[in-house]
């Protein structure tokens, strides 16, 4: 797998304007999610500094994807607060917890990929990326029905910037292939391109290197670094591959049974006995 050449400067049309959150892009306090009797996420405090790459790790079932789903508005937390760039995502109204709907969260600037790729399989790669841009396009249905100059202009710009994104992930010559006909690695990159089309400030990547070999993983790791640098992005990863986690994270948070058991730099976390115990069981921590 090879990516396009790094250009060393932010690509046009992909940098999102800054909001009011200051240095902390995501601020969450006391976030809890209960499903009936099961507590999936338990009183989590989690901040993501702007411009950082943060990894969220932990054994399976630890609540990582549930937390992702709460940030993106798919689940409503049972309690707690989540703020993104100064905007509250979760609020309490009339004693009931309410969350922004996922498309509103996407509009605020959070883009994501999925653990099991969820591309629009029978749409072309280009259309998948163009769909991502919908959230900030302005033309209405009557503009579309009449094909007004404004709509045509917007479509052409969208097409151009979507092709840019495909170039970024080195898929521009597969632009008109159906998404589901692409090989696995290409699909993963397409999903990222689609998420980037929403012009996010925060990119949530759910196991971006799942199923990749060592060299592909290296490329993806470098790619994520470039995204942060060139597109001024903040990245939150769920990852199981420790090479990736240790390699690019500025900070690592470890969840186990829905609770934060460790937080810090990769080196700190890796030596933390609680973390070792969570992954390997009690005995291994003593070795």
């Amino acid at each position, binding site marked *: 797998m090879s990516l396009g050449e790094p250009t060393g400067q932010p690509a046009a049309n992909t940098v999102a304007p800054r909001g009011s959150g200051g240095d902390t892009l995501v601020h969450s306090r006391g976030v809890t999610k209960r499903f009936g009797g099961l507590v999936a996420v338990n009183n989590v405090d989690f901040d993501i500094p702007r411009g950082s790459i943060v990894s969220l790790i932990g054994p399976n079932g630890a609540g990582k994807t549930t937390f992702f789903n709460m940030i993106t508005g*798919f689940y409503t937390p049972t309690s707690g607060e989540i703020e993104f760039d100064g905007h509250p995502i979760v609020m309490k109204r009339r004693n009931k917890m309410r969350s922004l709907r996922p498309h509103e969260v996407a509009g605020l600037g959070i883009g994501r990929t999925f653990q099991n790729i969820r591309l*629009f399989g*029978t749409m072309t790669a280009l259309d998948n990326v163009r769909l991502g841009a919908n959230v*900030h396009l302005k033309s209405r249905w009557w503009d579309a029905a009449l094909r007004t100059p404004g709509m045509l202009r917007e479509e052409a710009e969208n097409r151009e910037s979507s092709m840019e994104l495909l170039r970024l992930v080195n898929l521009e010559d597969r632009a008109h292939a159906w998404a589901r006909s692409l090989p696995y690695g290409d699909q993963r990159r397409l999903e990222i391109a689609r998420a980037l089309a929403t012009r996010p400030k925060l990119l949530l990547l759910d196991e971006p290197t799942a199923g990749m070999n060592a060299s592909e993983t290296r490329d993806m790791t470098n790619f994520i670094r470039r995204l942060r640098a060139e597109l001024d992005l903040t990245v939150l990863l769920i990852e199981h591959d420790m090479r990736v986690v240790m390699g690019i994270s500025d900070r690592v948070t470890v969840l186990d049974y829905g609770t934060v058991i460790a937080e810090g730099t990769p080196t700190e976390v890796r030596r933390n006995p609680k973390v070792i115990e969570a992954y390997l069981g009690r005995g291994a921590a003593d070795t």
Partner: protein
Amino acid sequence: MTTLVVKDEDPYGHGIGGWLSHVGAVLFGIPDTYRRELRLHRRRTIALTIMTVILVTYPILNSMFLASFSRTVFPLPLPDDTTVTFMMIFGIMAIGLNIVAGFAGLLDLGYVAFYAIGAYTAAFLASPHWGSISIVFLANVPQGFPGIHLPFWIIVPIAIIIAGTFGALLGAPTLRLRGDYLAIVTLGFGEIVPVVFRNLADVTFNFSLGPLTIAVEHVNLTGGPLGINPIDAPYLPFANVIFNASAGYAPVYLGMFLLVIAILFARNLERSRIGRAWMAIREDELAAEMMGVNTLRTKLLAFALGASFAGIAGSLQASYLGATTSDFFQFSTSILVLIMVILGGIGNIWGVLLGAVALTYVDKTFLPYVGQQLQQIAPSFPNPAQFNFLFFGLILVAMMRFRPEGFLPNRQRAAELAAHTQADVEAKVDEIVAVDTQAETEAAIEADPSIILDNTGPPPGQDETGPDARSPETIDEERKL
């Protein structure tokens, strides 16, 4: 690899001027577009060209010599002018339902309600129904004539707005429901609307709140079971043409004109950001929502826009026939339009048009023709025209079983419909692969736990190609669950 070269001057222009020049460019570009389509999609273009030529020339040829030939020399199952006009009317409805069911993937079983709303809009605004007042505006009727009389070209936009509004009203609370429940709710609406039209012939009520008093006595709101007639026919003053049921083939071309506009609108919507949003919702609604698509509003738009097409069709039908009654609007009509969409090719504009033309022909011309011929040979044999829905029902069952994507399939829908069986198989295969890999890697971790946190090379037993393959760390963690 193509790149879009953005010239310095903006080729799109602004405002009305820009739009007109764009329209002009499209019109002048038609020969080139046609040549390109012919090159890229040879069969489809030829088929559509033939169909268009036949449709456009047939009404004239029919009136010139085909009809008399059929009368005198040999009876042929030729569609008469009314049938061809209804081909246009049903074509508009098929395109509208295609937006709802084909583009957005929502099953609407009550589409006839919007057809009725369009028809009654025309009936209210172009007939002597409101006998106690007289509003005549640009209509082919003397001043002071009782009732409201607006010209057809004003009624059509009004019908669009009213039908579309009702579509939005129905959709707003119900589009959250899942597919089969939504279908039933729309069916209910499709039943309630004609019942309301049938039963409001004698409305009496008194309402007073403070100084406000509303009292109506025996007001005939909707004409009841007898309906409303006569309804003014569309009228073209410059050529002094009336487009009603006794006007020969002229109404066919009025219908064709509206149909062409409907096709253009539908195609433009399909190839826009809203069309892509509909496709995405149909494929994976959750992912679409996550990518910023307001799924509720987008679905509502499909619903309302689809309804407005039925409004056009209804207003044309009522004005053409010169009358309307709730008997015209049955559940079977909703299903007939649905069959047109499914038979022709759900999601494909040309497919559903073909379905509309074919089924209108079968229903209004072919089956009655067969019935007539059978009558002469075997008089006691049942008349197939009366049992048309026996065939249509069988068609539905057969289509869903053997060719759900229709005869002119939309490639995406065909793929989606096929994918359902394939995906099940693939998912099962992945499960099996993962289990085998897990056993191997568990053994490796047992041997050396440190590979979890400190990898120096590719771990053994890792499958690098399957989408659900896991690195050994993951598998070990799964073991912990």
